[in-house]
């Protein structure tokens, strides 16, 4: 195999490092086949590779499509890391905004869940044991009347932010996928 082609395929494979090995191998195999077909029809190597475009850009378009297709299920963490890795080239958006949003979601979600659970328990089962019932001049009963809905609100914010983050990720991936005219 021609040295240039070998180099191209190596760079192409490297650009696909964020996606699962089986899909990556399939894509490389197909690109290898494509290049071989082009060469066997008599076109010069430089020409064929130029038409394909830079290997890293082509890989990025393929990887972005793979991540857009990937189901949003159990492989959650792996998909997230793959997305972050792929989008690192966008700089600020992925390195700051995405993890930043994720952190906010975790914070709101955690506070929401803990707050809701503690308030609920305090109102019911642990009524006499948990002393979150601060005497309040205007609110009859205890502070749970405030903390319970407030905690649920925090949880809702977390849900909203998650939806927002998913939309943003989809937007970034689509832009990466469309990068080839």
């Amino acid at each position, binding site marked *: 195999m021609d040295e240039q082609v070998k180099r191209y395929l190596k760079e192409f494979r490297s650009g696909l490092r964020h996606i699962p090995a089986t899909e990556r191998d*399939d*894509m490389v*195999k*197909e*690109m*290898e*086949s*494509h290049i*071989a*077909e*082009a060469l*066997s029809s008599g076109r010069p190597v430089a020409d064929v590779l130029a*038409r*394909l*475009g830079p290997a890293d*850009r*082509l890989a990025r*378009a*393929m990887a*972005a*499509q*793979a991540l*857009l*297709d990937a189901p949003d299920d159990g492989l959650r963490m792996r998909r997230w890391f793959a997305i972050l890795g792929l989008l690192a080239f966008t700089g600020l958006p992925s390195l700051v905004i995405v993890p930043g949003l994720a952190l906010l979601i975790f914070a709101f979600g955690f506070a929401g869940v803990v707050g809701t659970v503690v308030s609920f328990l305090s109102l019911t089962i642990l009524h006499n044991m948990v002393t979150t019932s601060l005497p309040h001049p205007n609110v009859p009963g205890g502070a749970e009347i405030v903390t319970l809905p407030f905690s649920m609100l925090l949880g809702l914010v977390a849900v909203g932010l998650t939806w927002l983050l998913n939309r943003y990720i989809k937007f970034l991936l689509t832009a990466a*996928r*469309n*990068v*080839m*005219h």
Partner: protein
Amino acid sequence: MEDWVSQLRRGVLELCILSLIEQGPQYGYEIVTRLAETPQLAAGEGTIYPLLRRLKKEAWLETFWQESAAGPPRQYYRLTASGAEGLQRMRSEWSQLVGAVGGYLEGGPRSDG
């Protein structure tokens, strides 16, 4: 302007690719070459291969590898049943749309004040 044209092309490329494959299973390079015969589509490998991948994930296309006489094996694409059905629906949407747009271009429905 460029953005509009590029969006248009992206929109119709899927229809063109599915119609091509409807004629018979084809491999990636074949599809790319045939689409290159219509430069108006300006569809390159970087657009076509991800699209083929998406159609395969959506189960509109299925693939199979086949040995080739001189060179590495080729990955062929063919329409699935839902792909064929989807193509029919896209075809009908397309002709309705083209008809409507044609009407406007010929100075169609007008609101008289």
